[in-house]
């Protein structure tokens, strides 16, 4: 998942569909995000590359819609409903996730275990 400027980013991603839960007036997804191009990437505990300014999942609440959908802590969110999440500010990411008129968010997330799994399966062949 290292980022070389000028080259496209390639990653193995998993599609996750989260249905928002209505809690009173709010629609919650049940996880917390960290990161963004306006944040300090060196403090990110989940990233492999400490210059990676992408959006990461820092916490998943137990039993929430995110956990049910298969989101795990430490996942990097690449896309939200088609919107790119690799080069956004923290606030832009929050806005894309908490749109009031959307009930479902379709995320593309990547994690290290996915790449290992794909490599292993490729090696078997």
């Amino acid at each position, binding site marked *: 998942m290292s980022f070389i400027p000028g080259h496209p980013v390639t990653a193995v991603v998993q599609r996750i569909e989260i249905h928002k839960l209505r809690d009173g007036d709010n629609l919650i*997804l049940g996880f*917390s*995000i960290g990161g963004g191009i306006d*944040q300090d990437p060196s403090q*990110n505990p989940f990233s492999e590359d400490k210059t990676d300014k992408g959006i990461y999942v820092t916490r998943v609440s137990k039993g929430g819609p995110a956990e049910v959908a298969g989101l795990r802590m430490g996942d990097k969110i690449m896309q939200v409903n088609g919107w790119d999440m690799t080069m956004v500010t923290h606030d832009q990411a929050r806005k894309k*996730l*908490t749109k009031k008129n959307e009930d479902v968010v379709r995320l593309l997330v990547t994690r290290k275990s996915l790449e290992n799994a794909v490599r292993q399966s490729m090696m078997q062949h």
Partner: protein
Amino acid sequence: TWRKRRERSRDRHKSRSKESSRSEKSVTINAPPAEPLLGDQSVRGEEVQDDNWGETTTAVTGTSEHSLSQEDIVRISKDLDDSVGLDCKRYLNVALSVILGLVVFLTPLAFLILPHLLWPDRLRACGTACEGLFISVAFKLLILLLAVWALFFRPPRAGLPRIFVFRALLATLVLLFVLSYWLFYGVRILDSQDEDYQGIVQYAVSLVDALLFIHYLAIVLLELRQLQPFFSLCVTRSTDGATQHYNLGQLSIQRAAVVILENYYKDFPVHNPALLTASKSRAAKHLAGLKVYNVDGPGENNAAAGIAQSQSRAMIAAAARRRDSSHNELYYEEAEHERRVRKRRARLVVAVEEAFTHIRRMQEEEQKKAPGDVMDPREAAQAIFPSMARALQKYLRTTRQQHLHSMESIQQHLAFSITNNMTPKAFLESYLTTGPTLQYGKDRWLARQWTLISEASVTSGLKDGTVFLLKCIDFSLVVTTKKIPYIQLAEEFIDPKSHKFMLRLQSETSV
């Protein structure tokens, strides 16, 4: 009540000392095989020790007060001052410099006029360029005259003991210069009776140019060179330790002494001999309480020097060992003096303030009644002076300043303050603090005739570590020289971009 407390503590002190071991108070004197007290004649007479020597011998104390008072000394020294000194030296200097100036000034004119007088028919006519040079000579001579007047003909500020080296050098240089020009003129122009008048005029112009350059040299040597500070001089007064520091350039010792003395009159508080008597009496008391008795009586004869040495050693040993309570006395004395001064000062300030408000009230009344009839400040001063005179005199006596101010001077100062609308605090300022010497009348200075005492020659320049003395009759100023350190400045460049800071956050939002 505090005085009783002091006596009580002293008694307690004495009883305590009696209880302590006797050995602390005893003095060991190495008994010298000494001469008897009364000399050789008594040895022959007194073979048997007289047991009643405690009552019959009389000891002569070492302290005796001379009855010559301070005023007598001042009067004697003033007589020495008023006698006319070597003023002929000053007049000689002035005369020489005026003669030199005249010679120098008239030389170019002489160069120009002499050909016209001696061989007018053979001279070639002076063209336009030559006449232009006349104007240039005239203006350059005018500038030279003004410059010489500005630099050299100023009233002298001091009389120096030795010649002023730079001035003498410059005078010699000018003299040699002008003489060499005259020599050349005499040999090549007067003897051969040159017809080229333009050349002669150009020669005169070159002389005036060179004189202006010599004047420039004079400015640099006499005025500019010492402006850049190079040495720091520390001046200490020997009687009370008042110290000042001055930064001077590269000067000779005598010129530095003049600068220091000029600054002395404005920087140092006036010398007050009345303030020094306290420490002198303390020092006298310290050793006067000890007397050396020869207990062994007529013994072997010895050299007188041995006795004197052993006696002084004994006295020093005794003085070091005895329980000295003079520091205690000093402390209490100073505390009491401070309190007394403050009390008198409070009374004085109140009296003066009341007097001034009285004047202001009277002034307002006068203005209301008759606008043209204002009181003369002198009369006003005389009117209110008696109300504050007593308080002021008491204060001056407590601070031992009473000899510095006469009644006439106080009244004058009061009239001056009233004229200039000063507040009572401004009026009192000159009495509450001792001002510099210049503030007081010339007869109170006690510092008029100065002597320069120096190991190095007084015309030599200041060097690091030079020490010299400026002695007056009552006190002396000790001057030490230190070189100002060479300052090496280094530069450090700070990129303005390094001052930009980015606040890096790491926030977590739950969605």
